[in-house]
């Protein structure tokens, strides 16, 4: 398992959902509900990041990150995206504008959840040397 650091670029907008707890719901004819829980850890968190009017070099760094996260997987080794900068501990990507560190922990997913791309980034060219990039991530629990 290998962490790949996302480039340190501040997003223009960020949308986060903390994920759900695995369960199944049964509703009987009289309307009562029963739940069967399969785990006590939330999973499938989602994170949507938009980077508006960033430079070509910044776009390149995101696309390169997408490639490096998704290449070189083996039967036993996978990769994931890490938003914690190796040098500064917390980089600007998911924590920009968030002052409460406990909230930052949610966005970073300091649990067993691991961020991976939920599809390729979308790049829309807006101006010479400027593009808008949208990235979607999903964080899941890896099987042991």
């Amino acid at each position: 398992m290998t962490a790949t650091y996302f480039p340190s670029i501040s997003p223009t907008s960020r949308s986060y959902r903390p994920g759900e707890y695995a369960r199944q719901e049964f509703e009987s004819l009289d309307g009562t509900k029963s739940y069967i829980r399969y785990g006590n850890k939330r999973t499938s968190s989602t994170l949507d990041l938009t980077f508006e009017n960033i430079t070509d070099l910044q776009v390149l760094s995101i696309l390169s990150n997408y490639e490096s996260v998704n290449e070189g997987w083996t039967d036993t080794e996978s990769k994931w995206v890490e938003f914690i900068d190796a040098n500064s501990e917390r980089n600007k990507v998911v924590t920009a504008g968030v002052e409460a560190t406990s909230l930052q922990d949610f966005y970073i997913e300091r649990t067993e959840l691991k961020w991976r791309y939920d599809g390729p980034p979308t790049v829309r060219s807006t101006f010479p040397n400027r593009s808008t990039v949208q990235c979607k991530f999903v964080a899941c629990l890896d099987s042991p």
Partner: protein
Amino acid sequence: MGYYSGADGVMKVGSTTVGRVTTFSFTSSQETLDVTTLGDRDRKLIGGTRSLSGSASIAYYSATGATSGDTMASTLMNNLIKTGGAASDTVTLSLGINDHSGTYKDITMTVVLTSIAVSSAQGEIFSADISFEAADAPSGFDL
């Protein structure tokens, strides 16, 4: 002379000086690209697409011996107004002044005529008010 007035202004269409122009003006503007990110408390902008537009008022003139510069109002009308569905023509405009040494300093650009308003009123000269937008970056600028 350090200051200049309307008497120093020169408008050319192609290489022809417009003889009956009464006013001209142009405006250069630029859009902005917002590069503000999360965490910023102040808006951050960079320059975007530039554009140039302007207007001129030219008196309609026709007389025996009138030059092409004198009849430019008619020429410009014919560049925009076409019969039979023909395409309009772009125009090369130069707007500038003759400076203290007599040197012509101007901005030159190919423009698309966007409107021509012609009015005839009692007590006023029959004239054409034209508006234009630059079709590309100026080809010359030494104002």
